[in-house]
Each structure stands twice: as C-alpha cells, then as structure tokens.
C-alpha cells in the first residue's frame, strides 16, 4: 500500500524531471526538423536545382512554388516556437526571454531561432514571387543565403545545446546530445523534403534524383544509429563507474518505452525501401516509411526529455553516507560501513518523502 502511495520508493531516490515535457519536445522537434529541412533543401537547390526545370503554380496564381518546396523549413520553426511560449508560466512576457544572452542558452536560442525564421522566411517569400529583379545573381543575396544556412545549422545544434547546458542532469550534459540532435534534424529534414517533393510533384518516385536522395537518407539513418549507440553506450559505461546512478533507469525503463519507436524509425524505413523495390512505383510505402521516421524523431526528443534524471542532491547523499544507508562499491568498505550503520541496516532501500 505504501509502495502504491509513494511510487518514488520503488525507484529509490531517482526521479526524472517533470518540468519539460511533450510541449518542449514538440518545440525541439519542429525547430530541429525545420532547420534540417532548410539545410538539406538549400543544398539540393544549390547542387541539383530541380526548381529550375519545373514550375509549380497553385490556383493559377503568378507565383512559382517549386523552390518553396525545398525551403519551407522556417515555417516549421515558426509553428514550433509558439509551443515554447505555451510552456511558459506567464506567456505574455515571452519577449523578455532574450534579455540575458551573455550566459543563458534559452536567450541565445531565442535570438538564433528568430534570426533563422527572419532570414529563412525572406528566402521562402523571395523564391515564390515572380519578380525578375528578386532573382538576379547578386552577391548580397548569396551572402544572405549563407547567413541563413549558418543560422539553420545553429538552430539544429541549439536544440541539443539547450539540454546540454543543464549540468545537473548527466544524460543531457554531454557533447553527444547536440550531435545526435543535429543528425536527427538532418535525417528528419531530408525525409520532410523528400515527402514534400513527392507531394508537390517536383520529383517523381522513379527519378534518379529521388533514388540519390533516398540513399542519402539511408546514410543519415545509419549515422544516426551509430551516434545513438555511442551516446547510450558511453552513458552505460558512466553508470558502471558511478555505481548505480541515474542512467540505469533511462536504459531499463525509458528505453523500452521510446527505444522501440526510435529503432523502428531507424530500421523500418530501410526495410520498407526493400519492400518498395518489389512493388515498383508504390509511393504509399515511401510515405509510410517517412511518417515512421518523422515520428521517431519526435519520440527521440521526448524520450531524452522524459529520461532527464538529475544527479542526487549532495546533501541527501551526505546524509545517506553518514547514516550508512547507501552501498559503497568496494566490499571491504561496505563491511566497515555495515558495522557503523544505524540498526545494523547498512544497505537498506532508501525511502523519503517530500
């Protein structure tokens, strides 16, 4: 009964943070995917430039949306940003969030995302308008394009750096996390671009260019899998050295919940591609694989957020040590500790209530 009333007792003193949940996960996901798709879209536009050959008008308007199919990433970031505002205690004060860029990554992120949205939306609008003077080969436009690309990279990295800056949560406080989020942003971004090109008719499923993009996507998925594996294995090693610290819970409980989706999103799209080769021209499989991959990107971020377990408060550890309530990894020390423990209980399960 007591265990039911106080489930924290089963998990000893380890408790995941509950302050950032699915709302922040959506924000991180859309920011990452938006930035990733802009990076990929710009690179495709520079290298292959499918918009130069095909024109996509909508409702007989004079605008050409062929290039916009590649550069719509900033819209995703613009949709995601209000989710961060939604998570604030006092939403109308959201503009204050940029007052301390000297030390705060939230403030820096506010500036980075705002700059990316402004530059990105400028290029999105520019690419759609039919005016010739807008499409001249001016050096200024190229410089602005490179700046927008740099801010897109910064946005994709920032989603990981924001969590990395939290020093009290070991799972987040690692350089592997920004790298993992960057690769995930690129893979989800590329998939979003592939789907948008298929949907708009900019590329057909059978085209050579599409095959190259799909191979690129698979390469990114393999890279993401490697980074995810390294990220987890490094944390597992850290757990062994730390002696039953926070990360075990992430691996034992959280990973089963979210890991399935992540693994599915990494492995299943590759599998589907092979199935697709049996059913030539079947776009449905591609859309299904893409949807899985995109949902995996979201659950990856939600899983990392939900698994953020802070290190134990030093004072609590000190009390547990003082009263002989915690295990020491060395057997000889545990024996000595057992003799001095209260009531002879040297290795009892800790139970405390806030």
């Amino acid at each position, binding site marked *: 009964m007591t265990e039911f009333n106080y489930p924290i007792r089963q998990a000893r003193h380890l408790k995941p*943070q509950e*302050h*950032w949940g699915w709302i922040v996960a959506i924000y991180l996901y859309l920011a990452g995917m938006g930035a990733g798709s802009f990076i990929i879209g710009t690179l495709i536009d520079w290298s292959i430039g499918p918009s130069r050959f095909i024109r996509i008008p909508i409702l007989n308007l004079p605008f050409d949306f062929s290039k916009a199919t590649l550069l719509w990433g900033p819209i995703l970031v613009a949709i995601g940003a209000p989710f961060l505002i939604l*998570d*604030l*205690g*006092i939403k109308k*004060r*959201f503009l*204050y*969030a*940029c*007052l*301390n860029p000297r*030390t*705060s*990554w*939230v*403030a820096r992120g*506010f500036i980075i995302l705002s700059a990316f949205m402004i530059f990105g939306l400028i290029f999105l609008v520019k690419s759609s308008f039919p005016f010739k003077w807008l499409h001249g080969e001016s050096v200024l436009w190229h410089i602005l394009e490179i700046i927008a690309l740099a801010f897109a990279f910064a946005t994709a990295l920032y989603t990981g750096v924001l969590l990395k*800056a*939290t*020093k*009290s*949560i070991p799972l987040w406080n690692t350089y592997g996390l920004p790298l993992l989020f960057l690769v995930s942003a690129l893979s989800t971004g590329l998939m979003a671009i592939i789907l948008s090109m298929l949907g708009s008719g900019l590329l057909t499923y059978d085209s050579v260019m599409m095959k190259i993009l799909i191979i690129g996507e698979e390469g990114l998925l393999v890279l993401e899998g490697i980074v995810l594996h390294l990220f987890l294995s490094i944390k597992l090693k850290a757990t062994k*050295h730390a*002696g039953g610290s926070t990360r075990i819970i992430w691996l034992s409980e959280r990973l089963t919940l979210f890991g399935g989706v992540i693994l599915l999103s990494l492995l299943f799209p590759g599998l589907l591609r092979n199935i697709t080769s049996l059913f030539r021209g079947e776009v449905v499989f591609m859309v299904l694989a893409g949807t899985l991959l995109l949902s995996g990107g979201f659950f990856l971020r939600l899983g990392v957020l939900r698994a*953020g377990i*802070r*290190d134990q*408060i*030093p*004072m*609590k550890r*000190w*009390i547990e*040590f*003082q*009263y002989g*309530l915690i295990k*020491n*990894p*060395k057997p000889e*020390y545990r024996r000595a500790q057992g003799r001095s423990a*209260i*009531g002879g*209980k040297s290795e*009892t399960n*800790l*139970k*405390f*209530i*806030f």
Partner: protein
Amino acid sequence: MDEKVLVVDQQKCTGCRQCELVCSVYHTGSSNPSRSRIKVVKWEEEGIYLPLICNHCEEAYCVEVCPTKACHREPENNNRVTIDEKLCIGCKTCIIACPFGHPFFDIKDRVTRKCDYCDGDPQCVVFCNPKAVSFMDADKMDVARRREAAIKWADFMKQGR
C-alpha cells in the same frame, strides 16, 4: 556589513515541518507547504529529517541560465540570489539547472520562487523550536566541524571510485 547565511543542523531537526508552514504563510498568506521556500526531506522509517534550503551558491547555475535576468544576485542583501517576479516568465530553466533542486514553480502565480532570506529575517529560523535552522555570519560557522565532515566525505568519494 557581514554576510549572513542560513545554516542547517540536520541532527536537531525533528521533522515537524513548521518551517514550511511559516514560510508559506509569510510569503503567500496561505498555509500551504507546497508553496514553501524550505522543504523538509524525510527518511521516515529511519527517522531522519533534512531541511533543504537555497545555498545562494557563489557560482549560481540558476542565475547563469535565467534568460530574463529575473534570477539575480543582490550583494547588498547578504549576497543573496533572488528572483524578481516582475521579470520571471516561468520558463522553469532555473529549476532544471539547480543541482539542489531548490527553486520551485508556483502554480498559482505561474512564476518560479526561491528563498530570499525573508528580507533579512528568515521566518524558518524564528519559528524553529529545536533551532535546526539558524541565520549566522558566514565567517562564524563551525569551521572545524565542517572540515571534519569534508574530510569524511572526500574519503568516501575516493573509496567510491
């Protein structure tokens, strides 16, 4: 002016949680321990109680991560770290950043709160009968006892590696 700090003597704490009550009454007008700036952690079966308060750290992570500068240091007020509720946007970044889990989110006012020494007269100290919490000059704390504790702790950490 000498800088004063809150000092906890855990062995004197009886776990009555009166400090939580007076803190919430003083700051919010309501008798609601969940809105208190001091929290008593309990190991019930062992009968151990530990009042947790803000340490007003020298290198305060809450100040570092606050995007609005609402969380700031006031050298003129015992060098305390406090939150300006007019600037706080309730982003909860400081709560996540604090290694001691001290700041808490006030659901009613939708901002983050933390200990502010009750503007120089901490109510938890005034109402603590066993004197488990005291407000004293930083340089008059029991240095020998702290050194002994630190040596024990360092020894424990070494053996834990």
